[in-house]
């Protein structure tokens, strides 16, 4: 923190008001594979100092790379010159420390950065998928470690060291009618937690279930969403709960406080507090200890997500969702209930099991209208049984209508990451009634 301490003093000498400095040193690697072979191993090694500075109601976000004293002295002057030219922002302050943080246990495993072991695991996963029906396998295997320190001139001092591993594996099965596929992802703090070989097997098993697929009629279907399939949709609920989204009219929760927005069985929180889950953090971007915030409780919208500035503006308390300069969701969690895949299938007369989606796009963020495209194997459920698979469809829904139509929720909520999602969310299997399914004529 020597550079950060020095820079803090320089900024104060130049009459900055509020200052937050975050120093990050990160290393990560990625093993990329396709057509069942490793293509390339990539490594990234970076350090940066992220800087938030204010002068009155003027605010600025920047980063500094060269941390020698001469450069920091020069940078402090440049930043204050830049900020003096800005107009006032809608800004009300940062958090006052000091704070106590929970234990760091579980955040870090040295094993995550063992690349040799990761390459071996990756090769085993590819073989497992091939042995279980894949004709081609593609994906990435990643590991990272990040060491960060955060300080502010409002008595905040925080630090954490964390690791993360990630596997994304897609099995493709070529057959006479085309190609079917199954995709699984896994995220952990260490290599073992990825359960890489089993995930590879599951991806191949999903793929071969899609071999004999047939067209279905358009219309209303009950949809059973795998976690990977729903994560990119559910995380929009976290985004829409941010006070920033409300202020910029890009939220379906405007004027919805204490109003019914979901079925009684739907409870959704923003929860980055389980250290073992990648995506968790001890503190937010202002250094406020993170907490679990219930956004929707039993179907009723209960809370917008705030940082200190928006909280002061609306005369409430921060929810520890800074985000500089805007409040942001961290990890959106759909709370598990007591159902399972067997019950979901058994209770479905006309439905589909969607294992993955992509390209979720909104026609209106205010209304919450969206469509998304199921990718990989889609199973057809008829009168309580799986009767085949289909392809080439699109799901058309609305965020609030979807939450009101969630009928059953699975028992286990696990962290889920994917190419289509921005954050790591925690989502169980769930079933939604009456979703409009369309396809090109």
């Amino acid at each position, binding site marked *: 923190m020597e550079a950060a301490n020095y820079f803090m003093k320089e900024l104060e000498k130049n009459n900055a008001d509020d200052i937050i400095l975050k120093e990050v040193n990160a290393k990560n690697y990625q093993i990329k594979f396709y057509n069942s072979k490793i293509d*390339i191993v990539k490594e990234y*090694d970076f350090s940066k100092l992220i800087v938030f500075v204010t002068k009155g109601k003027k605010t600025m976000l920047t980063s500094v*790379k060269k941390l020698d004293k001469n450069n920091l002295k020069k940078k402090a002057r440049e930043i204050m010159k830049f900020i003096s030219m800005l107009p006032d922002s809608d800004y009300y302050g940062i958090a006052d420390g000091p704070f106590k943080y929970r234990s760091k246990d579980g955040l870090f495993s040295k094993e995550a950065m063992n690349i040799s072991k990761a390459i071996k695991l990756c090769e085993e996963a590819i073989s497992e998928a091939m042995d279980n029906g894949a004709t081609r396998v593609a994906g990435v295997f990643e590991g990272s470690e990040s060491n960060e320190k955060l300080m502010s001139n409002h008595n905040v001092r925080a630090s954490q060291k964390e690791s993360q591993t990630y596997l994304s594996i897609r099995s493709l099965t070529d057959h006479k009618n085309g190609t079917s596929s199954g995709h699984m992802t896994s995220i952990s703090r260490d290599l073992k937690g990825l359960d890489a070989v089993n995930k590879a097997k599951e991806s191949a098993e999903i793929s071969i279930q899609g071999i004999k697929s047939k067209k279905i009629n358009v219309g209303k279907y009950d949809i059973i969403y795998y976690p990977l399939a729903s994560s990119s949709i559910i995380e929009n609920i976290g985004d829409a709960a941010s006070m920033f989204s409300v202020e910029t009219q890009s939220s379906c929760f405007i004027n919805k406080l204490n109003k019914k927005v979901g079925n009684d069985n739907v409870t959704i929180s923003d929860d980055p507090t389980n250290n073992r889950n990648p995506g968790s953090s001890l503190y937010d971007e202002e250094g406020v200890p993170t907490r679990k915030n219930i956004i929707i409780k039993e179907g009723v919208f209960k809370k917008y997500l705030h940082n200190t500035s928006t909280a002061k503006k609306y005369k409430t308390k921060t929810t520890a969702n800074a985000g500089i300069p805007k409040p942001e969701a961290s990890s959106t969690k759909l709370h598990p209930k007591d159902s399972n895949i067997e019950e979901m299938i058994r209770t479905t007369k006309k439905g589909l099991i969607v294992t993955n989606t992509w390209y979720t796009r909104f026609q*209106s963020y205010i209304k919450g209208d969206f469509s998304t495209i199921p990718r990989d194997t889609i199973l057809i459920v008829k009168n309580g049984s799986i009767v085949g698979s289909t392809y080439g469809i699109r799901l058309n829904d609305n965020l609030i209508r979807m939450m009101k139509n969630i009928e059953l929720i699975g028992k286990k909520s696990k962290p889920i990451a994917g190419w289509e999602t921005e954050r790591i969310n925690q989502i169980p299997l769930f079933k939604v009634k009456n979703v409009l399914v369309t396809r090109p004529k």
Partner: protein
Amino acid sequence: MNYEAAAEFAMNYALKKGAEFVDVRADYEIGNAFAMHNGVLNFASSSTSEGIGVRVKNKGWSFFSTNKLEKEFIKKLVSKAINQAQKIKLNDDVKLSDERTYKRTYSAKEKIKVSSLSPDEKIKLLKDLEKETKNSAEGRTYYLSDTQRERIILTSEGTRIKSYIPQVYSYYVISVINNSKTSEHFLSFGASSGYESWKKWNLAERIKREAGTLKKSLKYGKTIKPGFKDVVVAPEVTGIIVHESCGHPLEADRVLGREAAQAGESFVKPNMLGQLIGGVNVNIADDPTLPGSFGFYLFDDEGVKARRKMLMKNGRINEFLHNRESAYALGTKSNGSARSTSYSFEPIVRMSNTFMLPGDYKEEELIENVKDGVYIKSFMEWNIDDKRLNQKYVGAEAYEIKNGKLGKPLLNPVIEITTPQLYKAVDAVANNTEYFAGTCGKGEPMQGIPVWFGGPSFRMRRIFVR
């Protein structure tokens, strides 16, 4: 060391350590960004970044990138990368096509230099835009950013390309309300130029016109009676169509399966070159050499000379987009389509400026010959499957066409169609080309890259609209 010295050092050290092949991309980039919502500045940032990305072949392939440009640290990373590459099981499929080497320096033209405007002058552009448009739409988010990027590309074969590309980018999101009904629209503009482009975009007039028409649509618009109709789309819709359903499926790395677990594969197979999938008047190009364009470059990020690629010619699949890896795999030469968002990422196959070539008709003539149809001027929601076959576009501003004339506004007409159905239905192309900017996402880690997409209005006969 600065980025250029670090690039040279990494190259020389990797060769000294016995690498079979090395290429290096190194950048120094300055960026500024500002965002305003309903007149209040809610984001201001300024940043610089500098670093190198190095790819080495030593039996297998490895890549590293860093912003720590000290000699000893780079030595450590180079040695590690060379060792790492040797440990990977040899994959014979991964080789690079042979290409001519170049030594060149070039830059994009910049009349009003990005560096010549102070932060307050840039913010004034947003404030003036807000002043002119504040009574037009209930919600107004305006964003403005600029970058100045110096890049050097070195290959162990002898290529050395140095470039300077300034860019200016802006987007707006407007939302209008009428009797508790809402409508939203997003649009972005960008150029590899100085601030002279800002004036050309004429955003205030565009926003006022759009807000007015969206309000009228909410007030008087009707839902469409689903059926097979003739559809005329305007350049904004043409742009997204050609980008999604022609540019992406013809990226050779998708065709070969390299993106299978990320952005997906393609319905196009290697043996489909020359296959007719569209009307004979459909010609679509990707061309990074357009001066001032947002996807501008003269040499790609593997040092291959850029050129126009005719992706679809008279309705036939004509050419894939290639980098050196995909070109080798398909037994051809790279056509200069390798791009990396910054020094920190590997170069992969990307679009640049993708557009339909204009035809001979005026837009009015396309409409005049429609008895019962739809005119879609702009869109909001769209998506396409990961093989680039099944796509959907939802109109934001749209009108019915009755007996050759535009009629009542339509509320969100939907086209849901396959790629061959779409292009085969094209029977006439207008001469009114317009380009729009976007940040195209691909790769893992995600690489958002500046592109243009556009073209003229065109007409499709008898497609299903709901």
